[in-house]
């Protein structure tokens, strides 16, 4: 029986590029196998997914060398559209790739393209929506009225309806709140499904992965095998290449004398006796260094927050941010976190109530909104000053792409550039970062965490909107929980992240570090 997917010495190059974006690589995905593709941002992971059915080079300009076979047939044997019955895609930016006008249209789209009998389509649509956890009354909702995370769930329902044997998923859970992300993972990576998945944060999905493939910075395979072998044995090499590791392995690499190597942190902590040095080391590894908070920088008092063209989504919000403080803004998809960010920064005036404080800056979810120059270097030079530009480019891993147009970067590189533009200038006393870890690899996330803490030490007030609760825990002193149109919690970040019941009510799940928080509490 042929492999579901086979790449034989495949190399991909974009027009005008001096070198290959990825490859040459050779690997296969067997039927019923779930393969995780790891790699730093810009290593060519998305390009490899696009090449599977010939989207690259048929629909995306580029050159492919080597051969790709889908279920034993050359990928070139059909047009990319012809493989829709075999391969289903979940794209990185679902918000921009939905076809229908309503949710029903969207879920039915691939079925219509496959010429499924019209009478069968409504039943298949309803079944796919139910499997994806979409309420039945969503069927008539317009796509344009959905939030980014909701659109991602609709894309999942559409994929399930498509019922292709092979799933190609590019960071499918990146913009989802943890509970929704878990549902997505359970469905896309169910036992017996064939899937090739790109994910920057492997921790939450490792138990559903049969094999890992890791690409290095040069776009070639540096490790391959079962997750436990690749991540534990090759951990240092992966970390050197900027790949994010599960927290348990990261902690083991940082303090091998304290923690045994295991992808699951609970296993590592089992039987670990408390001790002062050990406790302090573990606390420092997952919690930020405290910074004494200064004066209040910005305050929202009894504010009603609304997007520019929409109704009020948050009522009677009272919230302040102090100098030296990092605040995590947490909540489910569509809760109004981005609207709160715009109000807090002073970009959108509250419909009622009051905002006081200097204007702030927001790093938007879509990094492209921040670009206005012809090259990465020009963006950095314009935002900072030319003397420090090369240092900043190096610090954010952008030196090699300094001459490129910002829109030609990978998603992770775009994110790093947008964050560098806002966080390196020191112009704004208040900074709000909206889902800043989306598309970032391990090295990028670590650099961002360090920069946020440096800003806090420098007297800035920073708010971070994120679904990545481990990242929130590592950078934030305080957290607010936004749900059902109001603030449901305002207090210490670790206290919220240990409160499973409260998190569950808001569609969130405890972070990977939750067992360690429990251990630290017991140890103290």
């Amino acid at each position: 029986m042929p492999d579901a997917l086979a790449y034989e010495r495949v190399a991909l190059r974009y027009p005008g590029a001096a070198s290959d974006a990825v490859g040459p690589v050779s690997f296969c995905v067997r039927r019923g196998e779930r393969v995780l593709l790891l790699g730093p941002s810009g290593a060519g992971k998305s390009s490899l997914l696009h090449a599977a059915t010939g989207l690259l080079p048929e629909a995306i300009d580029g050159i492919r060398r080597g051969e790709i076979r889908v279920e034993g047939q050359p990928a070139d044997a059909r047009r990319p559209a012809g493989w829709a019955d075999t391969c289903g895609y979940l794209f990185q930016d679902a918000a921009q790739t939905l076809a229908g006008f309503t949710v029903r249209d969207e879920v039915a789209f691939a079925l219509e393209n496959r010429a499924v009998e019209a009478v069968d389509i409504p039943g298949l649509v309803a079944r796919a929506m139910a499997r994806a956890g979409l309420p039945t009354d969503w069927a008539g909702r317009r796509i344009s009225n959905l939030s980014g995370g909701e659109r991602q769930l609709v894309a999942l329902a559409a994929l399930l309806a498509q019922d292709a044997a092979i799933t190609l998923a590019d960071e499918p859970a990146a913009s989802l709140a943890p509970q929704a992300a878990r549902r997505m993972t359970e469905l896309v990576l169910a036992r017996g499904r064939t899937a090739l998945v790109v994910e920057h944060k492997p921790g939450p999905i490792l138990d559903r992965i049969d094999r890992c493939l890791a690409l290095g910075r040069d776009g070639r395979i540096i490790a391959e095998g079962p997750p436990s072998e690749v991540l534990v044995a090759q951990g240092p090499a992966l970390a050197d290449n900027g790949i994010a590791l599960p927290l348990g392995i990261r902690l083991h690499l940082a303090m091998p004398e304290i923690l045994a190597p295991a992808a699951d942190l609970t296993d590592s902590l089992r039987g670990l006796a408390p001790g002062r040095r050990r406790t302090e080391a573990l606390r420092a590894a997952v919690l930020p260094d405290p910074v004494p908070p200064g004066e209040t920088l910005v305050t929202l008092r009894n504010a009603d927050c609304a997007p520019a063209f929409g109704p009020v989504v948050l009522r009677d919000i009272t919230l302040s941010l102090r100098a030296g403080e990092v605040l995590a803004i947490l909540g489910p998809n569509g809760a109004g976190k981005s609207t709160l960010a715009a109000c807090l920064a002073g970009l959108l005036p509250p419909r009622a109530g009051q905002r006081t404080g200097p204007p702030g800056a927001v790093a938007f979810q879509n990094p492209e909104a921040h670009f206005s120059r012809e090259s990465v270097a020009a963006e950095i030079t314009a935002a900072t000053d030319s003397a420090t530009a090369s240092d900043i480019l190096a610090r954010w891993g952008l030196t090699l792409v300094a001459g490129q147009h910002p829109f030609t970067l990978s998603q992770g590189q775009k994110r790093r550039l947008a964050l560098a533009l806002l966080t390196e200038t020191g112009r704004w006393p208040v900074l709000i970062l909206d889902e800043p870890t989306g598309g970032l690899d391990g090295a990028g996330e670590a650099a961002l965490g360090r920069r946020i803490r440096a800003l806090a030490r420098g007297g800035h007030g920073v708010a971070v909107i994120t679904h990545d609760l481990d990242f929130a825990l590592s950078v934030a002193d305080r957290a607010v929980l936004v749900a059902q149109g109001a603030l449901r919690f305002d207090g210490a970040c670790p206290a919220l992240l240990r409160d499973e019941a409260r998190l569950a009510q808001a569609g969130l799940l405890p972070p990977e570090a939750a067992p360690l928080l429990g251990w630290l509490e017991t140890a103290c």
Partner: protein
Amino acid sequence: MLNGFHPLPKLALCLAWIVASLLVFRLSFQIALFVAASVLLLVDARIPPRRLLALMVPFALFGFGFFTTSVLFRADTGFAFQMAREQGGAPDAAPGLVLFFRVLACGMVSAVFAATTDPGQFVRALMFHLRLPAPMGFALLQAMHMVPDLRAEMLQLRMARAIRLGRPLRRIASPAEIGALAIPALAYAIRRATRAALSFEARGMQPGATRTHLPQPPITGRDWTLLALGLGLLVAALSAVGAAGP
């Protein structure tokens, strides 16, 4: 009532009234059509009066030149006279006024269609009943998505620009700001369209390929009745105009 009217017969009826408005050069006919369409918008489509007035503004602006020339200066433009002559205009009113109310009447009839029709259902009906090619139909749906998304993107671009320049966000964009954001907005639209095309291809859409459709609402007897009633009313109105003579 009109919300449940199938989009295609409704479109045919609206087009028939618009064509009649373009052919009949009578002030009374234009005012009657304008009033009838406005009443339908207020009563059936439940458009609030203030919004209805706002809807009229672009159409009124279009015909405002004829209106001012005719009412304020008690004269008419050469164009208005020529139109009146070519279309057998009756001497019941100044030609400029007729043209002004014609623009308003056509605008309000279009608004009746737009306000009472689900755009997605309309495009679906075009694909299902009139064989509009699916790539074209879904491109139209994408364009409809893009309007609100582009508005949100423009706002985000404006916010990012305000942040970059260290200025507060203005309530209304200045011409210079619009100019500066035109290229990024265009780039966004092109990227968005490219991604959508990629997604269409990946999910099996091919020009010319056989595809089925989600079951669509059929054109029922009630729709035919409404169409017949609307056309009957139009014939009656035209007869009345004809009976009134030139």
